[in-house]
């Protein structure tokens, strides 16, 4: 009833090519944005910020980044953890070397540095494809983690090899360090995510995104119709690494405050983000959000239900939680191999026809 195109007339090309062509979708989007910016910051407390929202927002940035590379451009990458580590260490070195520069500039610079590293490790993609490329990016993962462990300069020669984020202010309010108010953490990450998601959505709708998708769908055909594989692939690596680097910088400085590379940015992080986009849906911005939400929020939710509500033993709950999450992943992939985004799309399709299917 509500969800339909009928009566929603477009009178210009701009209106016709907007992101949310259906009115109901558009309104829903504005409401979500309004709640995220206007309501949540007033209600949020430390637990909600540190355990739920901030990790979700940061993983969403990383998932969008990987989705650009893998979902839109078709280049499989297992180096996400390593690239996040580049972002985190770049941010740390910049923060400690130039304390007076506004923190958001450090985050952006960390993204650009990671973009550079990503392009470097993306070079093999011009010669190799598929599984072989995955192995090459796996090498990046292990090399980067090894590098940050091995060279003391990266962690400012601290005794334990840990990097710890010092306190940094934005407009007189702490955004990193222990004294950060919950709403500041949340809003800082939300603003960055909002800007990046908006950028990603429009990049993928435009000519750049179409070039990526042409490469993904068939690289030889793309080359014949005039897409330059060098610039298309490397730009995908650069943009993707930029996002992942920013996610890594925020993960270290805003979310955790102290990390060690092997534990925080190990291979399991690469897999986690990869699973996010596979479960959420390859080649979709909404899928990145859905996948990140699924893998970040579900374990916390299950833990709170099993331990907090039912009073189960913590170890039993932790094991059951792994089984439930694993089982649900398999269930979703059997029911809908194209991820949560496809479920969403099918639901919308059905709503459009309702109540008169066929």
């Amino acid at each position: 009833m509500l969800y339909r195109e009928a009566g929603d007339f477009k009178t210009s090309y701009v209106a016709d090519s907007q992101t949310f062509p259906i009115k109901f979708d558009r309104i829903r989007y504005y409401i979500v944005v309004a709640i995220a910016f206007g309501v949540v910051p007033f209600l949020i407390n430390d637990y909600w910020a540190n355990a739920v929202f901030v990790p979700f927002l940061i993983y969403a940035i990383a998932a969008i980044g990987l989705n650009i590379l893998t979902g839109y451009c078709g280049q499989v990458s297992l180096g996400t953890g390593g690239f996040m580590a580049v972002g985190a260490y770049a941010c740390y070195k910049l923060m400690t070397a130039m304390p007076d520069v506004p923190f958001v500039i450090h985050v952006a610079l960390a993204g650009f540095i990671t973009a550079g590293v990503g392009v470097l490790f993306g070079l093999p993609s011009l010669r190799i494809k598929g599984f072989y490329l995955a192995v090459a990016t796996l090498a990046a993962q292990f090399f980067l983690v090894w590098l940050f462990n091995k060279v003391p300069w990266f962690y400012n020669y601290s005794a334990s090899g840990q990097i710890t984020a010092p306190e940094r202010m934005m407009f007189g309010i702490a955004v990193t360090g222990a004294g950060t108010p919950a709403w500041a953490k949340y809003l800082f990450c939300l603003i960055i995510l909002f800007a990046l998601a908006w950028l990603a959505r429009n990049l993928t709708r435009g000519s750049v995104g179409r070039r990526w998708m042409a490469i993904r769908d068939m690289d030889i055909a793309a080359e014949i119709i005039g897409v330059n594989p060098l610039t298309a692939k490397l730009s995908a690596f650069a943009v993707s690494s930029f996002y992942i680097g920013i996610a890594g910088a925020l993960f270290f400085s805003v979310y955790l405050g102290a990390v060690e590379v092997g534990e925080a940015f190990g291979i399991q992080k690469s897999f986690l983000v990869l699973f996010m986009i596979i479960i959420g849906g390859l080649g979709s911005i909404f899928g990145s959000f859905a996948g990140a939400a699924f893998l970040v929020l579900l374990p916390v939710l299950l833990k709170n239900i099993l331990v907090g509500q039912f009073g189960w033993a913590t170890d039993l709950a932790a094991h059951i939680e792994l089984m439930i999450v694993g089982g649900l992943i398999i269930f979703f992939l059997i029911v809908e191999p194209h991820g949560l985004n496809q479920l969403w799309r099918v639901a919308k399709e059905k709503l459009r026809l309702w109540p008169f299917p066929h």
Partner: protein
Amino acid sequence: MKKALAALAAATMLMTSMPASADLIVPNLSYRTGPYAPGGIPYADGFNDYFTLLNQRDGGIGGEKVVIRECETAYNTEKGVECYEATKGGGALVYNPLSTGITYQLIPKTAADGIPLYTPGYGRTSAANGKVFEWVFNYPSNYWDAASVAIRYLLNENKGDLKGKKIALVYHNSAYGKEPIRTLTELSKKHGFTLVQVPVDHPGQEQKSQWLQIRREKPDYVVMWGWGVMNAVAIQEAANINYPMKNFIGVWWSGSENDVLPAGMGADGYKSLAMHGTGMDYPVYQDIKKYVIDAGKASGAGDQVGSVLYSRGMYAALVISEAIRKAQAISGKAAITAADLRNGFEQLEITEARMAELGLPKFGQPFKATCADHGGPGAALIQQWDAKAKKWSLVTDFIAPDDDVLTPLIMEDSAAYAKENNIAERCK
């Protein structure tokens, strides 16, 4: 997803809106799953059981019942943060996360929230400097003490001379494993031995190449900073290359029954440091048996009682309970706050007589904290594994660390932290 969020909201509301009762709330960030569970389970059991004993036998501490809030971290820092945020409301008194990585995150957070952090034998070593780390306590011993004690022991073995010797450090490639490197480097300069660093990556189930390296380098001694499954694998690999076990010394986190039993007779003669005695020959176990185990209130499966790490969890609980007692005495009220407890920790003194009174004579070293000293004396014992009898036996008395080397290092590291975080020194 909205439904899920609503359920999540309901679950957390219920959890956080629990009324702050007058009980003494001690969160236990434990790990009973994952590759570090062999260490996490006995420690958590010992920790819980000691407080259960106090509740059952004495009706709590000073008439207040102790409530343990356990939360599973799986030794993972992200889950550790979630656990900290979930438990810190409602009057949490002290944190003891048994993870150096989580400790590093909690140091600034607990200072901002005003909750003491107690990290016996792990965590950030330079937190021993109470002038900088107001809320962190790591007595009786820390990592750098351990490194120094191990070297002192080897000096004694070699008539005070380690010149030209080669010592390999096999370590968990994380904040935890890297802690002793700085001390060992300094000590190698002082005593003239060569230090070979052999990192093992998380979780440490695969160590063939590391032990091949050790076989090639032929070090005179191997010192290990391992945890979880890494310990058992390392001891097995050392046995496989026929490395003489009597020259293989683990830190106190690499010296539990779970580490040596899998290697069978191959582990015979393996040594490790110890912060305290072990075994069930202490009078306190009669009470634990009567009030906790036979009453069916034992934590976990109840099969870890008396093991090394169970003893350590119990020791940590004992120190916390004594600090609570002290805090109650200082503040004059039974229902203390986290800030009161910090004062209790800072003025805590545990004497041998007090340990005997608590049913643990000759178990740990006496220590006394001050405003500037949150680190304690730092002495440690050496224990050796007897694979036939399947028990640890102490081979030395308490060995004191080399404070001439350690104190400047602690000052340097804590000063760096103070500078990074703009902390002014206390205790003038």
